[in-house]
């Protein structure tokens, strides 16, 4: 089969030094700060008060609306505060603070987080499975944290024929999905079976970048009798972007402004599939995730299984602390991750990685004039003219920026990465996108 590749993109240095580091369990921190906003959509609403004793996995906040999911305690302990705390978004937002009692105890009937379902999950009706996914608070763990049950509820008119599992992990430094596929293949596959059942699709594919040959081999072996295609993809950032992945795997181009379901596809991250398996088979809510804690400033980079709400400071300590002064703290990967104000920020469901950079790794070079070298144009996977949009954006010419399709920018950062004049292209496009949307809301 000829695999179509998206146009544009680039191949930054991989820095995947943790690729061979097996997943370790992160120790219990002194305090868990669980923000109520940790998925795209309406933040959850707290249903505990200060002083309440909670068990691990107990519901502590309820969803508000369809595009929202509940939140659960990630360890057992006492609720010590329900107050605004610094959020990875960069400002204080309401969070539930739990002081763990050290027992890490699940509620009765969920011993060790296991409550084996007595029936074969694949015999349950899809709607029931979907509710269970929602109740377990499962969101997209690739980083975008879109509530999973919403993606699994295509509107009546949309026929879904393909499920794509995203095991691409194209961001440099990150290896959490890679390790997950290698070490917890069974969880991922069980999740895929359930997702397939919910969507009722025939075709299931797993896309993995070619730079993870061991993961490709392991998944291929495991998928032999399951009628799941494992597709090796060219190593090319941003291959893991949903629409680019769909194009590479199916040859279908998701329309501008449209959703994957418009071309009959649902994409789920492999980590999300594993969380779905936990939710259905064990009745275990999403209270932890796997993340890569890495960066040249760290003594011992690791892949850790972390409880939601663990502070970044605790994660750093878990990795042996720092070997040099850190100047930049990034949640997520270096291409799309968000810089953090402080290490006191908690890890949330969307925390796929933590990257700590020292002085040497932070480029400081002043910006020059655009020499129209067109590198940004040739690397843009959305096929836009980043230099043009950015020039308009920086002159506050919002209508012109919109006319040049600023809203189609996927913010992958390829343009700014490759600009020899060091113009903050994607940064200014991101801003103008906000301005365009604000203007639309007004009118």
């Amino acid at each position, binding site marked *: 089969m000829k695999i179509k590749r998206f*146009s544009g993109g680039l191949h*930054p240095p991989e820095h995947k030094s943790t690729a061979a580091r097996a997943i370790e369990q992160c120790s219990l921190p002194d305090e868990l700060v669980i923000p109520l906003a940790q998925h795209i959509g309406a933040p959850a609403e707290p249903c505990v008060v200060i002083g309440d004793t909670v068990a691990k996995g107990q519901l502590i906040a309820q969803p508000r609306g369809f595009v929202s999911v509940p939140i659960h305690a990630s360890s057992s302990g006492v609720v010590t505060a329900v107050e605004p705390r610094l959020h990875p978004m960069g400002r204080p937002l309401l969070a539930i603070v739990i002081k763990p009692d050290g027992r890490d105890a699940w509620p009765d009937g969920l011993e060790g987080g296991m409550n084996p379902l007595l029936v074969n999950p694949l015999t349950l009706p899809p709607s029931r499975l979907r509710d269970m996914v929602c109740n377990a608070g499962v969101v997209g763990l690739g980083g975008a944290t879109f509530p999973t049950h919403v993606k699994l509820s295509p509107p009546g008119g949309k026929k879904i024929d393909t499920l794509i599992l995203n095991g691409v992990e194209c961001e440099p430094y990150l290896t959490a999905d890679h390790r997950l596929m290698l070490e917890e293949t069974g969880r991922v596959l069980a999740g895929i079976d359930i997702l397939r059942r919910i969507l009722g699709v025939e075709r299931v594919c797993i896309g993995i970048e070619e730079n993870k040959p061991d993961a490709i081999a392991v998944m291929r072996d495991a998928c032999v009798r399951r009628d799941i295609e494992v597709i090796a993809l060219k190593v090319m950032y941003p291959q893991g972007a949903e629409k680019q992945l769909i194009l590479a795997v199916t040859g279908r181009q998701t329309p*501008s402004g449209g959703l994957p379901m418009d071309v009959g596809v649902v994409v789920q991250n492999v980590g999300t599939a594993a969380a779905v398996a936990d939710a259905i088979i064990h009745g275990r809510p999403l209270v932890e995730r796997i993340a890569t804690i890495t960066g040249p400033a760290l003594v011992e980079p690791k892949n850790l299984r972390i409880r939601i709400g663990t502070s970044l400071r605790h994660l750093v300590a878990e990795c042996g602390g720092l070997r040099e002064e850190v100047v930049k703290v990034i949640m*997520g990967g270096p291409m799309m991750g968000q810089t953090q104000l*402080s290490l006191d920020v908690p890890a949330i469901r969307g925390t796929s990685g933590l990257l700590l950079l020292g002085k040497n790794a932070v480029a400081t070079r002043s910006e020059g004039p655009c020499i129209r070298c067109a590198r940004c*144009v040739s690397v843009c996977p959305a096929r836009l003219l980043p230099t043009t949009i950015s020039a308009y954006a920086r002159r506050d010419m919002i209508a012109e920026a919109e006319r040049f399709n600023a809203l189609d920018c996927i913010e992958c950062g390829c343009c700014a990465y490759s600009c020899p*004049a060091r113009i903050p292209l994607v940064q200014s496009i991101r801003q103008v996108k906000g301005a365009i949307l604000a203007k639309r809301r007004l009118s």
Partner: protein
Amino acid sequence: MTEQYYLSSSPHMHSGATTDKVMRDVIYALLPACLTAVWFFGLAALTTLLLCVASCLVAEAACLKLQGRAQTPLADGSAVLTGLLLALNLPAAAPWWLAVLGGGVAIVIGKQVYGGLGYNLFNPALVARVVLLISFPIQMTSWTAPLSSASGVDAVTMATPLGEWKTAVMLTGKLPAVQSADYLNYLTGNMAGCLGEVSAVAVLIGAAYLFWRRIITWHIPLTFVVTVAVLTGIFWLVDPTRYPDPLLHLLTGGLLLGAFFMATDMVTSPVSSTGMIIFGFGCGLITVLIRLFGGYPEGVSFAILLMNAATPLIDRYTPPRKFGAVGEGGR
């Protein structure tokens, strides 16, 4: 909170590319052409090269000073590059003042009046070349023979192959005879002409470097060269006694230098691949029209400048087709 961290929006990595590295790569790519020019035209070529580079640097520094801007842009290599390109567009016998004046015109009129690097509409070296060609036609078309064919005698004058052809056709209505040995000379650069236009091999070596370093793409140079080859080929097939064959057109005049180094100037050429193809085709078409029907034997400079003027228009009408601009079903 004790620690203070850098805040910035993603990406947090960079390719390491810089404007001065890009400029430096183009300068390296021009070195074979510079060396062959010195080989064939000796000290005169070296003097012209140095004078052009020096006058460009001085003009750039003066402009920055006048504008009260920092002198740091001087180090970006763009002025040196303009100087080299200008020198390669001058005849070996160019008097010193022509080179110095050219450097000043290139930087002041070709570049700084527009706002400096990145803002100029026209290729600065070509602006200077055309200004000089129009103002000092005699000095600009006094060609010396290369040293090897001049047998030690300095400053033997000789027409360029294209000039020779043009004169012959105008006087006699017929092409002069071209020996196959001449083609070898055209290829290596053993002929009269501008410093950089004489050696096709040197230009192509430099061009290969530019491709390898991914400074240029095939779009502009290939369409330019192919357009010239096809169009001149048609005329040659129709009347080989009046029109020289495409190979002569490709190897002589500034065609290769223009196609690989001047038309591909990033600042003054389109940014999308479709735009680049249109640009290359336009350059080729205008070059052929001037060469075959115009008053000048050579038309590359005018062709590129005219297409430079069209670049904003081309850019406007050739944005790439955005991702997802598809019909129902995404196919």
